[in-house]
């Protein structure tokens, strides 16, 4: 699936800027995702992590800076069907709310077939649908179900299957497990780890949850007010944070002997 040699960056982002009126949402953001790697972007609301993700997938446009996938620039506007499909095969996205990101009228199998027809006309779609459902841990029976007949975890599996159907180089997961219950969240996180090991797809994981970052990413980027304040290997950043904001984020995660009073004071001081 990957045409990129191991170790080289499959996704390169550099100098990304985006303003909405007077507000600078993203300010000179850059990072690179190695082929088959998993990179987390952590931050609170207003940190610019979601805007960055939307620019990477092409739902928003940057004022300045570049996004390159497998060496191909994808910052300019796209023209024509072939270019549009090629873009889609570079980056796919899994959204936070699996119910709202699926068309409520369309069954699971039909949704997958629609994507397959678009990208791979003339192939055996029935077999591929079974394969995809199997890959995300859904039975073949799920193919006939409508989104509202599925649980939250099952819907998110469908959304993952739909992203995989395109056979992309990178999948952007925007708070993709935030809406799920803990026990279901663990299932989906394990599934994502398995898929990455099998296919070598790169993940860009947008999340506010440091526990999730620890669990599924190799590299992490910490954003605040549109800027990157710290980045590095996940284990290092979480064990030995350099920036005061990263330390604050880590201490804010509730644990035994947690002192919310002190965190509140630290937040005001920052």
């Amino acid at each position, binding site marked *: 699936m990957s045409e990129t040699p191991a170790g080289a960056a499959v996704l390169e982002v550099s100098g990304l800027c985006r303003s909405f009126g007077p507000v600078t949402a993203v300010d000179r953001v850059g990072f690179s995702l190695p082929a088959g790697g998993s990179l987390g972007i952590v931050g609170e609301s207003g940190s610019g992590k979601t805007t960055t993700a939307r620019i990477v997938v092409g739902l928003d446009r940057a004022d300045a800076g570049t996004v390159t996938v497998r060496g191909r620039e994808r910052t300019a506007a796209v023209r024509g069907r072939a270019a549009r499909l090629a873009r889609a095969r570079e980056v796919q996205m899994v959204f936070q709310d699996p119910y709202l990101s699926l068309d409520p009228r369309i069954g699971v199998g039909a949704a997958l077939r629609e994507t397959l027809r678009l990208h791979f006309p003339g192939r055996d779609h029935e077999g591929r649908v079974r394969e995809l459902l199997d890959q995300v841990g859904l039975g073949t029976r799920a193919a006939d179900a409508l989104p509202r007949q599925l649980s939250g975890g099952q819907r998110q599996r469908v959304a993952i299957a739909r992203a995989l159907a395109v056979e992309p180089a990178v999948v952007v997961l925007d708070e993709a497990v935030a809406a799920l219950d803990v026990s279901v969240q663990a299932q989906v996180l394990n599934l994502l780890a398995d898929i990455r090991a099998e296919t070598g797809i790169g993940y860009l994981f947008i999340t506010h949850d440091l526990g999730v970052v620890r669990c599924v990413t190799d590299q992490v980027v910490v954003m605040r007010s549109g800027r990157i304040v710290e980045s590095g290997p996940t284990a290092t950043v979480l064990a030995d944070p350099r920036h005061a904001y990263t330390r604050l984020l880590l201490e804010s995660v509730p644990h*035994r002997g947690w002192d*919310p009073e002190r965190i509140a004071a630290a937040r005001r001081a920052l």
Partner: protein
Amino acid sequence: MNALDIRGLTLRLPATARPVLDGVDLTVGAGETVALVGESGSGKTLTSRSALGLRPAGSTADGSVRVAGTEVLGAGPAVLRALRSRTAAMIYQDPRAATNPLRRIGDFLTESVLLTGALDRAAADRRAAELLDAVGLDASVLDRYPGQVSGGMLQRVVIAAALMGDPALLLADEPTTALDVTTQAEVVALLDGLRRRYGTGLLFVTHDLGLAAAISDRVYVMYAGRIAETAPAAALFDRPRHPYTAALLAATPRIDAPAGRLAAIEGQPPDLRAELTGCPFAARCPLADDRCRTEAPRPRPAPGAADHLTACHHAERLEGSAANV
């Protein structure tokens, strides 16, 4: 007198095969912080709402729900109005949904106590100013509209509004889920300070085990409408005696754990449309045997710890397996 005393609360909805709440026992002492932990559909929100006399339309309830000594189940409208405006108050997950965007924050704060005649205008204004100060906001927000303040600030306003009637019981339903982690710490610190200052009993409903461990004196874990386990926070997280509690702890991604696979709980919680015989967790439990599938376990105390109750036939087999939070 306990702030909240729920005994054997059983709630049935039309067109379901089993009760949505099945014999729930729960107490919140005066000035105590109690966490109610569960996944969606476990019945934790229904339980907390029952304390305000709020039940889904068409439901039937058995058992007893007492708030500061007053029975709520089957109480008349006058009792319920007094309860909701004075004795008990609730803080919801989304402060934006809990406030009227077209009304000034000042009016929002004083509305309830003025309508019920609990306080007069001057006393209500004094109380609002005092509470705003207690939640760390200055009086200038009184003239602003909800749209003009941040989510964290608005949640403080909602907390202040909840305390206007000086309630004995504060119900907080996922009050920090919609907030950022650093804001969450502030709101929790605030709730904790107010609880101490006013001696309010606090029932904190959450899906976050880590948060429950960090803030509460006692924890109840709910699963499929039943209390699976209850214990002082430290005991519950150090020595969980219910396989569900242990599995939930193991499935939570943590920053101090090594990267890699989580111990996920396979399967789904039981469907409301299916009848339940035996233990509701049996289908997903590694310890389940024939007895678990036929006989529902009653809550039993742990040896030497009368306040650590577990509804599991095999609680003893989990002794020694420790999970640290």
